[in-house]
């Protein structure tokens, strides 16, 4: 091993899953003591590549070199032995275990736990101090907030002696402030000589923290650049393969009459836990209201209640002056009929039936409309015809109305759902996570469609955990925290810092008070 050899080097790595060539001839070189970003759209093959490095999959061909020496990595154990640690997108932690138990899992140091745990506790104290990673090792992991759980994952990797740390989409579940904290930790790691590989699809993070960046597109490595020599626009273009507009172009909103008025809305879940607390909202025609917040703070429940899927525990929802709660119209089916469309946030769970063909998915929720029925039978040709129209208008690819929903990529699945709800021309549209798992190219398209609907005088509610998305398309932004609306502001006044603080539950007034003290 020489000091000039890169910490990690990949040479012509290939991986196929059946007909899908997920990684094509990937070569990559990561210098020691740097933070290296790998950026690419969903499905570009980033995660597959890193799973190969971590030994979760074995490459079909190609070489992996650690510190200049060829390494045969075919399972996580050999990867750990080579000094590679990984923080997965979905944390690989046992919720019912303590932090300590989670960290020693797999490296217990002997059959009896007692001594192993004691040594680990000692070692962890040292690590926590060295890298400024403060976590209570006796806390139950399931009771920790996500930011801390992530630190547990990092500690876990460091405890195993990782010199190279791979983080897969680490900020997806964090507030901007938590993300900043994470970046400070990564900075410390870099200072201590560790090598960090950051996988992300967020340009902001790449620009904020990395030294070098590699761009992947459709399973190929398309560019390696120094972060300081590039910019967001260039990276976006490299990712998508054509130039894209990162900011949606739109006119100022012309809000008109209030279509939906929500007052004092509360909802208790099956366990009696309050999920929504006294929500007040107004949706106006010709305006997009964005709901921001870290996921799991009541946004999903808000959509489900407004969409008529679950009844609220108390409060009122008025639509065009008429009370909906407890009325016979308050079911998911009839709401659609009276002009309230709903694009569910989880297209796999409630937006589509993955084993159905595209044309069947096209009529979900509208299957009893006379348009698609001929006596007792469904009118297949009418379904296919509508589906073809949707496919054409929303540029769904491949344009095959008989393909099963599972055969489309995430972005195209989302377009199918959006087309179904938007083409019914509702007066109010509820949209959950409009672009989750959708490529940048398709994001641009979906945003434009939403703006177009707004300009046609419809009221739109967009719930999204992507703060950039809310800021770019919404006209008004409400922030949810712990089932409450913490505050509401005009999109023009919104900054990432302001929203970030609100997403962490800090109210405007509180802040003013703190400032006064």
């Amino acid at each position, binding site marked *: 091993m020489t000091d000039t050899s890169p910490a990690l080097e990949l040479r012509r790595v290939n991986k196929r*899953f059946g007909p899908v060539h997920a990684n094509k001839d990937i070569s990559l070189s990561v210098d020691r003591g740097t933070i290296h970003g790998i950026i690419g759209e969903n499905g570009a093959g980033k995660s597959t590549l890193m799973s190969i490095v*971590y030994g*979760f999959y074995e490459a079909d061909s190609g070489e992996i070199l650690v510190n200049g020496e060829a390494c045969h990595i075919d*399972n*996580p*154990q050999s990867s*750990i032995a080579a000094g590679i640690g*990984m923080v*997965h997108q*979905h944390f*690989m*932690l*046992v*919720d*019912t*275990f303590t932090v300590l*138990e*989670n960290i*020693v*899992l*797999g*490296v*217990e140091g*002997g*059959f*009896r*736990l*007692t001594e*192993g745990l004691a040594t680990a506790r000692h070692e962890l104290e040292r690590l926590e101090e060295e890298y400024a990673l403060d976590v209570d090792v006796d806390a139950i992991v399931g009771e920790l907030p996500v930011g801390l759980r992530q630190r547990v994952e990092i500690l876990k990797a460091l405890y195993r002696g990782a010199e190279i740390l791979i983080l897969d989409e680490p900020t997806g579940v964090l507030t901007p402030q938590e993300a900043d904290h994470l970046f400070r930790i990564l900075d410390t790691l870099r200072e201590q000589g560790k090598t960090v590989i950051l996988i992300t699809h967020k340009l902001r993070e790449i620009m904020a923290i990395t030294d070098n960046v590699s761009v992947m597109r459709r399973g190929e490595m398309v560019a390696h650049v120094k972060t300081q020599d590039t910019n967001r626009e260039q990276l976006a273009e490299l990712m998508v393969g054509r130039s894209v507009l990162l900011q949606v172009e739109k006119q100022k909103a012309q809000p008109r009459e209030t279509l939906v008025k929500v007052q004092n809305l509360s909802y208790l879940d099956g366990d009696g836990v309050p999920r929504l607390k006294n929500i007040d909202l107004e949706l106006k025609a010709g305006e997009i209201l964005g709901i921001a917040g870290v996921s799991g703070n009541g946004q999903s429940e808000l959509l489900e209640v407004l969409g008529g899927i679950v009844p609220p525990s108390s409060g009122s929802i008025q639509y065009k002056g008429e009370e909906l709660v407890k009325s016979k119209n308050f079911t998911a089916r009839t709401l659609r009929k009276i002009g309230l469309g709903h694009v569910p946030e989880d297209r796999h769970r409630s937006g589509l039936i993955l084993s159905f063909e595209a044309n069947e998915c096209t009529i979900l929720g509208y299957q009893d409309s006379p348009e698609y029925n001929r006596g007792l039978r469904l009118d297949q040709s009418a379904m296919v015809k509508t589906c073809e129209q949707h496919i054409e208008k929303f540029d769904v690819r491949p344009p095959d109305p008989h393909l099963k929903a599972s055969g489309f990529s995430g972005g195209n699945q989302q377009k199918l759902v959006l087309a179904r709800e938007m083409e019914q021309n509702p007066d109010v549209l509820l949209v959950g996570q409009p672009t989750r798992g959708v490529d940048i190219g398709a994001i641009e398209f979906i945003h434009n469609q939403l703006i177009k609907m707004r300009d046609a005088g419809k009221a739109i509610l967009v719930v999204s955990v992507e703060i950039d998305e809310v800021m770019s398309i919404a006209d008004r932004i409400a922030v949810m925290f712990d089932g409450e609306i913490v505050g509401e502001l005009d999109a023009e006044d919104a900054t990432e810092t302001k929203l970030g603080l609100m997403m962490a539950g800090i109210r405007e007034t509180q802040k003013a008070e703190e400032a006064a003290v």
Partner: protein
Amino acid sequence: METFQIIVLLLDATLRVATPLVLAALAGMFSERAGVVDIGLEGKMLGAAFAAATVAAVSGSAWVGLCAGILTSLMLSSLHAYACVTHKGNQVVSGMAINIVVAGLAPTLGYAWFRMGGQTPALNGDSRFRGIVLPFAEAMRDVPIIGYIYAELISGHNIIVYMAAAAVPITAWILYRTRFGLRVRAVGENPHAVDTAGIQVDLMRYKALAVTGFLCGIAGTYLSTAHGAGFIRDMTAGKGYLALAALIFGKWKPVPTMFACLLFAFTDAVQARLQGVALPIVGEIPVQFIQALPYILTVLLLAGFVGKAHPPKAIGEPYIKER
């Protein structure tokens, strides 16, 4: 003194009835804590009971019978593992299949070999596990209360009863204080975490199911060579399911599960005692009703008193590496 003796005798009977329940419930604990539903406890016990009785009858040794019982149960357990760990099959279906196959196969083989209507020859002497009189039991019998309890309740059981008693703290120690236990619990909660920690999920589940098979084998052997004196068709009579219920009632924890088993066993001892006894006011209670008591209690407890049980999170799900 009369009541005191009745209570001690009742508790004595409770221990004898509880033994196979405790062993089977602990067996189920290893399996379910590792994330594999084991509805096949019943079949494994029955298979072990048959094998133990057969081998004990032929060889004349209860210990050889015990080995045969454990071996049979281990084989059935590996079959379960092969179906639902290696081949990701449905765990309930696999367990049920084992129950049905054994329920049919054991009496059929028994009939073919012994021509006794599906039973095995009656065991006696060394081919059965007999009670062990602990030191000083007889000498202490006359000491008031304690002596009687020692002689009647503590002493005089067969070796398997003591094994079951020891199995509870040993299981607790293994689950909470050893590497194996930590991994078993982890694999039942989040197999993905175990996999990324460099531990083979499938191998862990095989190991846990081997322990299940081992314990179930002892439980089954007890039924035919210690509690009873030979194999009778369907002699488990739902004890495997009862053990599973105790496991849930005990929230998948060793000591609470043991108490659940004792409770079920106690109601069984009480029902045996109450048969034919005329109670004040109601008079003699029909036997069928009394016999149903333990099962009614099970249903009531599981329906109402368990509270919120948190089963191992990954239970019932075969582990498939995501793409």
